[in-house]
């Protein structure tokens, strides 16, 4: 037994996966049905079968710099065909959460964001922060006259606060993916992770990755949950539309020097309102799809639902604050607007720690897979 391998299981890692939606992990008996029915996995060292045994054995180091858990789109074809109810799709989702925790510094933030116990703190923090800021500005009350949100929470206060949260989130994400990329290159050199060459075409890979994401083609490879294509497509493009709206608002305010509220027929309002409607439809489809597959797949973990909840509150409060403003119901419009801002701020601040962090890590993993010619 000179070449015996000593396995050093990390039991906390296993417990972490089991605690965050991967409770079925230990049922896997390695038949590899999952790797075969998956339409997005490569032929060489396919996922998710190998990830299942690594996770069962607590081989945490195998996941360092592993792009595969992020190449998984959680179609759940594997879960539906799994003969043991081991739910590889859900387990990989739980492993991704561990991966976010590992790469999005500081690590405790992911634990905080994804622990049910702390949910009041998550939203109380921005609410209290805003209350203090508004009290200091002397506008923490419902203003009289025509409803203009800026009278309550001045855009000149919103912009620095929200920009700080946004760039904090983006910054943490970029640091995370930098580390992730380094680990992937390292793992590839050590040959512990299946990849091809490391000297690929980076620029070409980035372009291919962007094309793939914009087209949403991978979602069409899912069989059981093909409906997710439309849901994710709507949510994705509504985020882009709302991002453009925000950029336009900055342009109107600081370049054109026009203060809100804007007419409903300006490009800014048109794009914003279409985005809001698309987001409302998309997020509802996501919820419906989850219940449709619940029988076999389960409805998902707290991690999944927290993000859905934040987006849901944002879109509903956003639409309602606009409607109540137009209907001139000040007593409702301002409080709803306040809630809206609390949740938008939360989305930005918790971006690298919530499920939304997938926009950093999955994009990077897809790009690395192309770069290293993983197939």
């Amino acid at each position, binding site marked *: 037994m000179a070449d015996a391998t000593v396995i050093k299981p990390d039991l906390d890692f296993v417990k972490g996966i089991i605690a965050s939606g991967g409770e079925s992990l230990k049922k896997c*008996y*390695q*038949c*590899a*049905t999952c*790797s*075969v*029915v998956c339409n997005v*996995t*490569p*032929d*060489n*060292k*396919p996922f998710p*079968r*190998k990830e299942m045994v690594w996770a069962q054995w607590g081989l945490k180091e195998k996941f360092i710099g592993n792009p595969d858990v992020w190449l998984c789109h959680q179609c759940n074809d594997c879960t539906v*065909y799994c*003969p*043991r*109810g081991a739910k590889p799709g859900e387990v990989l989702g739980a492993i991704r959460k561990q991966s976010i925790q590992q790469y999005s510094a500081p690590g405790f933030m992911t634990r905080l964001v994804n622990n049910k116990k702390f949910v009041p703190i998550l939203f109380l923090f921005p609410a209290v922060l805003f209350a203090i800021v508004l009290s200091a500005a002397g506008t923490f009350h419902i203003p009289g006259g025509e409803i203009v949100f800026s009278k309550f929470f001045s855009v000149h206060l919103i912009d620095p606060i929200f920009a700080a949260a946004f760039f904090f989130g983006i910054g943490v994400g970029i640091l995370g993916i930098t580390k992730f990329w380094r680990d992937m290159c390292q793992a590839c050199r050590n040959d512990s992770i*299946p990849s091809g060459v490391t000297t690929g075409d980076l620029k070409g890979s980035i372009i291919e990755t962007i094309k793939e994401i914009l087209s949403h083609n991978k979602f069409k490879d899912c069989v059981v949950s093909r409906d997710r294509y439309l849901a994710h497509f709507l949510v994705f493009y509504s985020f882009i539309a709302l991002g453009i709206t925000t950029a336009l608002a900055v342009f109107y305010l600081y370049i054109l020097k026009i203060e809100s509220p804007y007419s409903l027929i300006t490009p800014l309002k048109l794009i914003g309102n279409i985005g809001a409607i698309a987001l409302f439809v998309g997020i509802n489809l996501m919820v419906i799809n989850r219940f449709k597959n619940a029988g076999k797949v389960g409805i998902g973990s707290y991690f999944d639902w927290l993000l859905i909840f934040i987006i849901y509150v944002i879109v509903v409060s956003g639409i309602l604050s606009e409607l109540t403003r137009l209907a001139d119901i000040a007593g409702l419009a301002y409080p709803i607007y306040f809630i809206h801002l609390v949740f938008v701020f939360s989305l930005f601040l918790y971006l690298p720690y919530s499920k939304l962090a997938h926009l950093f890590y999955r994009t990077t993993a897809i790009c690395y897979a192309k770069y290293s010619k993983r197939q």
Partner: protein
Amino acid sequence: MVEEKRILVVGGGISGISAAVDAAEVGYDVTLIEKNPHLGGRVAQLNKYFPKLCPPNCGLEINFRRIKNNPRIKIYTLAEVEKISGSEGDFDVTVKLNPRYVNENCTACRACVEVCPIERPNEFNFGMDKTKAVYLPQDFAFPLRYVIDDKLCKKAECAKCVEACTYNAIDLNMKVQSLSLKVGSIVWATGWKPYDAAKIDNLGFGKYQNVITNMMLERLAAQNGPTNGKILRPSDGREVSRVAFVQCAGSRDENHLPYCSYVCCLASIKQASYIREQYPDAQVIIFYIDIRTPGRYEKVYLKAQKDEKIKFIKGKVAKIEEDPATKDLTVTAEDTLSAQKIHEKFDLVVLATGMAPTTREWKIPANVSYDVDGFITSSPEIGGMYAVGCALKPLDVYSSIQSSTAAALKAIQSLVRR
């Protein structure tokens, strides 16, 4: 002196026959009922037994002779249990006797078959050939007597067979009869059915002609089967050259049969061996999760591993695709030892389909308890009832017969224990 109670054995496969013969040969009266028109059950459909690869008909013939020579055994074919009342030592059982339309005069001369104008799929060969509406259930049928399929026969409207029969053996006016039995104990030898492979939607059975089940292969390979023992692929009748076995097709799968069917690994190794014997150039790949060859059967596995044309790949097949032009099949699995997804082409794919207990769908008309999978539990609620063979759990023939001998003793105890 009161009339001595009998033992009722329900099911005329190898388990039921064994229990009946064992009890009768120690001096107890036995009634054996079988719902098919012939005895022998699933074993009669097999080409060869493992591990010795001998034909099952010799074993069945010995038992049929023991039945014929023993006046204590009374047999009813086309018979089904309808009602049961009473308790251990004193059961009243009503049995429904379906009409055969052919009486004891039949000599199996085939004159009726020649004139019969109606064809039916032959379920003994899993629909791979046809018989006439009047047919001999199989070449080695016991009792050796024809039977008429009354779902298709036009009876008096046609009656050509009645005319053709020179022995006065056909009576198209036979009706369903009822039989009342007083028995002291009941042995349930209700057996199994191959799991319906069409329910495994990713393996293409029923969609692709050259995807067949392991039981179908037994019939293809059997001398008395639809191809007289030649293993020809269904789409074009070509002899096979590259065959895949898909283990655990439906078994060990909570979407189908959650348990291991116990015999399929050995059955596939057996089948691979006889394919190799018959076609020395043929290649066989057995795709498996774990090869399960309990006890001494390990030797069968070790022997097959030495054959360079039988390859074992650890990884379950979860996708089968057909080339519409050639009807060849591409099988996809992950070879888990090398972690490579492989796509291999075959001209025949055999699904090692598992065993579903007959009592999965059909329930005994008495308060018998079943496990979650539909097998009869080893201690049914009611005393005096004993399950044997594959009614109890998935078993090989050898272990089924052991369970039958054990149940025969218990059934006798139920008669004499006071």
